[in-house]
């Protein structure tokens, strides 16, 4: 059931109940080992991704490395 909504990177997204963060990331085509996630403002430890269940209204920020030298 996709009746729960979270906000990820500024967009409202419908997700399955009880979905873990790790499964959510994989579902978006992301490798949980190469992203950093802040949940409701707090930076999460990677080891918590598998156990963390997404909840209604959670605000996620998912970031990862891109090409960059200096402020470009």
């Amino acid at each position, binding site marked *: 059931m996709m009746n729960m909504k979270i906000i*990820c*990177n*500024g*967009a409202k*997204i419908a997700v399955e109940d009880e979905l873990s963060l790790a499964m959510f990331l994989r579902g*978006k*085509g*992301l*490798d949980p*080992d*190469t*992203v*950093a*996630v*802040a949940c409701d403002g707090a*930076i*999460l*430890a*990677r080891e918590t991704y598998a156990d963390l269940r997404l909840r209604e209204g959670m605000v996620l*920020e*998912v*970031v*990862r*490395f*891109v*090409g*960059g*030298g*200096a*402020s*470009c």
Partner: protein
Amino acid sequence: MLTIAGRTFTSRLIVGTGKFASSAVMQAAIEASGTGMVTVALRRVDLNDPGDDLMAVLDRRQYVFLPNTSGARNAAEAVRLAHLARASGAGDWVKLEVTPDPRTLLPDPVETLKATEALVKDGFIVLPYMNADPILAQHLQAAGAAAIMPLGSLIGTNQGLLTRFQLEIIIEQARVPVVVDAGLGAPSHAAQAMEMGADAVLVNTAIAVAGDPVRMARAFAAAVQAGRDAFESGLGVTAPVAAASSPQSGLGFLR
């Protein structure tokens, strides 16, 4: 060999990974450069189009990832970015950039010093991007910077060593490695920095946007090596008048 925070690097060229036309070109250019350290930036993932995963493209066993804090306008934002970078699994290294003015991208000295202090306390290996200010260099060293990264000229301008006079003082006084960063537009600029005694240089734009980035990476690698060899060999002093290199005696047969 270049040593920063106890880690040695065979190459004195650090390469930025921005502005390359494709991941494949970036990968090839970085390999051609011979570098052991690459700078990367941290950004929000576009969930609809995640694109290439940089950490899948570049082997972290081969390259130290030096995440920058580009985009930070003050110390608090830079500290936040550094912690996110560490959470991304890149280790403890950070190239600290605090650039509040988008037009010049000049580093804010006050906020950079504040952020250096905070990040060193949090266990980071901090390499601050700084204006070529010898006094600031000393403050950053005292705050625990693992290396200092003074600018040659403004980021992305290819203008070379406009700060030569200050860089010479910084290098002379430094107790940590000096990495000349920003504005190095040609291999000759990199060679000049190395001849001066810089420990390393960081190049991004000049390689990434070259017509042939792989070949340009090789050119920079050769220039960095040439400049370092010249510095270690001992350069001659400049003189105002000629000094003959042929013998001035034994010319009696001529006149």
